[in-house]
């Protein structure tokens, strides 16, 4: 537990707080990037160099940029004048407090945590590649599939729809988002990944 680790952690947390509380969305996204970088630094200090670099590549390089793109595409670049908090935000804060209290207490009072840190492991990319290709080859393939599906799905969802056909069945009146032309019966990929992931955390 070096000082550097502590400082990095603090920076990360502050950036996270800023990301969640700034009014301007673009600022918020940039702060998110800073937070991600901080986490990458923490990874580097924990001898998980590959994960750290992967973090910067994926999160900072892709996801943060993606978020900025989305902000710009939904015309939310300007600072809003009205309140940025949703109705019932106090209940949310309460739940959060409760959650943190529980987690913190669990961590601090647990007796199952190993006490003595082991020697730092030496991880080479070669080892990672070997593991991936032998033991974890199935998840690897599946992840590939998932990524493919996600990509296609994202494209389908975000595609601009054509003019709606007049003889389409009244089922189009349901509250589903309008399907693009050419795929009238294609079901919208139901699991909005964000919600599902939040529930499974």
């Amino acid at each position, binding site marked *: 537990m070096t000082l550097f680790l502590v400082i990095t952690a603090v920076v990360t947390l502050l950036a996270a707080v800023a990301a969640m509380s700034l009014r301007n*969305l673009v600022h918020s996204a940039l702060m998110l990037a800073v937070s991600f970088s901080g986490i990458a630094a923490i990874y580097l200090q924990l001898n998980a160099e590959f*994960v750290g670099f992967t973090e910067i590549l994926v999160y900072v390089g892709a996801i943060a940029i993606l978020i900025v793109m989305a902000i710009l595409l939904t015309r939310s670049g300007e600072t809003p004048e009205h309140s940025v908090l949703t109705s019932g935000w106090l*209940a949310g*804060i309460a739940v959060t407090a409760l*959650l943190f209290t529980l987690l913190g207490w669990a*961590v601090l009072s647990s007796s199952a945590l190993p006490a003595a840190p082991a020697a730092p492991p030496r991880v080479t990319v070669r080892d*990672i590649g070997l593991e991936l290709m032998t033991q974890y080859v199935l998840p690897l393939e599946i992840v590939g599939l998932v*990524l493919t599906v996600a990509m296609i799905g994202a494209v389908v969802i975000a595609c601009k729809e054509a003019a709606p056909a007049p003889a389409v069945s009244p089922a189009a009146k349901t509250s589903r988002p309008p399907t693009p032309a050419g795929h009238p019966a294609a079901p919208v990929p139901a699991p909005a990944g964000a919600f599902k*992931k*939040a529930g499974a955390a």
Partner: protein
Amino acid sequence: MNPLQFCLLVSALLFSIGFAGAVTRRHAILVLVGIELMLNSANLNLIAFWRFGPHPEALTGFIFVLFSMALAAAEAAVGLALVIAIYRHKKTSNLDEVKELKG
């Protein structure tokens, strides 16, 4: 406090911050931002346990985190696509106004 506990606490705090943002902010994209933070905190948790756990040479936590990152990316892509689609349909990205599922 040993390093493991510290890392776990940081992860917990990061998770709470992300959760607070997800349930408090009005803009849909900021909810996704919060979710990304929560995912990151989980990854951090995993790496901390891999580093200070009994068998770091098995690379279990490591590989887990790799996959988690991949999936997080996929999920962020799809989620943002959804936000754009909703924005196009309802001309707003305010989550308070998206309540067609109200029962």
